[in-house]
């Protein structure tokens, strides 16, 4: 009995210690998976180890991974929360998250270069894409975001509302409009655009290409 109590106390003490060390998601719990690559998707783990996906598959993704496509590759990934993301050619981003007390974790892509398309499904999500000059924050939406060499970021909302923020203000960008984020400036007034065309590059990844 005493031994059991001691072991229970020890377990609780150990749990308490572990529980207060870090909020970061455990490194061994996948947050999503890479499901398709036209060409090659390179996944660089936090320890520098690389893994590649060519064609269809199911490669687990972890917090801190960097995903890259080259000039002739595209890829498709999905997160456990029900968020689908496509990477166009020459795209690179890092998988991050933000923890806030009593709220679901915010899934974050830090887009270094290239272009992503994203769609959330199954209810509101907490999802953001960061670029060097702006951040797109969504709940239920489908959008395309491209970052250019100088950091200029082009957001096209296909469906829903995206909060498009720069250090100088945040704009709600709605269905079938486009807005630009530029260093040192507010996001531009949304302008009408053929938003569905912006996702055409993902057709092959989704198996809907002609």
């Amino acid at each position, binding site marked *: 009995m005493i031994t059991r109590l001691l072991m229970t106390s020890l377990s609780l003490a150990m749990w308490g210690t572990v529980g207060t060390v870090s*909020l970061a998601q455990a490194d061994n719990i996948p947050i999503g998976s890479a499901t398709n690559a036209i060409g090659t998707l390179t996944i660089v783990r936090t320890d520098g180890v690389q893994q590649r996906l060519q064609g269809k598959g199911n490669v687990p993704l972890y917090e801190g991974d960097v995903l890259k496509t080259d000039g002739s590759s595209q890829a498709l990934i999905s997160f456990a929360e029900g968020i689908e993301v496509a990477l166009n050619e020459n795209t690179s981003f890092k998988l991050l998250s933000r923890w806030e007390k009593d709220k679901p974790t915010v899934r974050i892509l830090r887009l270094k270069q290239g272009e992503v398309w994203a769609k959330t499904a199954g209810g509101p999500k907490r999802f953001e894409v960061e670029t060097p000059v702006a*951040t797109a924050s969504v709940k239920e939406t489908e959008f395309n975001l491209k970052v250019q060499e100088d950091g200029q970021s082009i957001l096209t909302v296909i469906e829903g509302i995206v909060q498009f923020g720069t250090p100088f203000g945040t704009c709600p960008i709605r269905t079938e409009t486009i807005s630009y984020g530029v260093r*040192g400036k507010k996001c*531009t007034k*949304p302008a009408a655009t053929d938003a569905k*065309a912006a996702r055409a*590059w993902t057709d*092959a990844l989704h198996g809907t290409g002609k």
Partner: protein
Amino acid sequence: MRRLNYSTPTVLLAMTLAGCAGAFEPTKIGSYALEQPAASAVPPSVPSRIYVANESSNDVSVIDATSFQAVGTIPALNHSTHDLAVSRDGRRLYATNLASGRVSVIDTVKRETIASIYTGERCHVVALSNDDSQLWVANIGENTISIVDTTTFRILGTIPVGKGPTGLTFSHDGRFAFVSSQGEKTVGVIDTTSHQVVKTIPVGANPHFLVVGRDGHVWGVNTGQNDVYVLDPETHEKVGTFTVGDKPQQIAFAYKGTAGPLAYVTVGSQNKVVGLGGDPGNLKVVDEIAVGEGPNGIWSNPEGTRLFVAHDKGNEIRVIDTGTGQTIATVPVGRKPIRVVVSR
């Protein structure tokens, strides 16, 4: 393979049209004041506290700034807690965590970490914009400044800076941010309206800590050549320098009786605090106070009569009466205390 459908000319046209419209005004977010109750319901003030970042115990020690009694410890919920910034109303504390690359957001009333924000590899120092709406964080591992909205906790932008950003402060008028870069031996001046580095000032070997003084001059330490330097807030030129000894660490401003404000510098290897006074171009030692092992972080009370010195080897805070140079309280804190700040 399908390609992006809009061409560059189309994009440029859209940008031009958008730029001409003019009437669209994005919502300015991030103003901390927006979160405050109406003026008729002024929230109760938060007691003045001393906060200490303990790098090896990954937490923040809280000390009452009046009684100098320990109040508690707040786990940062990250690794290698390094620098601190406290909001003007004392309700929010922001802590960088070097090993995690994250900023911990701390509710000082509840004394708990309420958010953890990834800013970049080896995030080192943090500074609040003058209106508390934005948090600027220097990431040594990425040579960038991350800009965090203090209301939404979103990263709103990233500014590329020189190699090894290790010091960060804003000018009194908020028009400029100053960033020291160890790898380039310079301080970069960032225009806060354009987010461009508008000037680079050579300052010396291993520039590290930066702080703005009570008169607006910007003070920095060079850990590589054992001196401090002073930058003119208008011309952005180096106007003064003084050798204080091996391992100069941080600077705070306080009075010694009628003399001052003096720039008190912790000198890590000599277990002392040196008080510099005089014209920035002709600095001299006005005060020298022996302290404990490994003085590092330093802060002063608003009146400039007390210094709070963190000792990274002694794992303690010493409260010093600048009038007499006497230590009037010693408070044990966590392991390797690096930074100390005091709420108003």
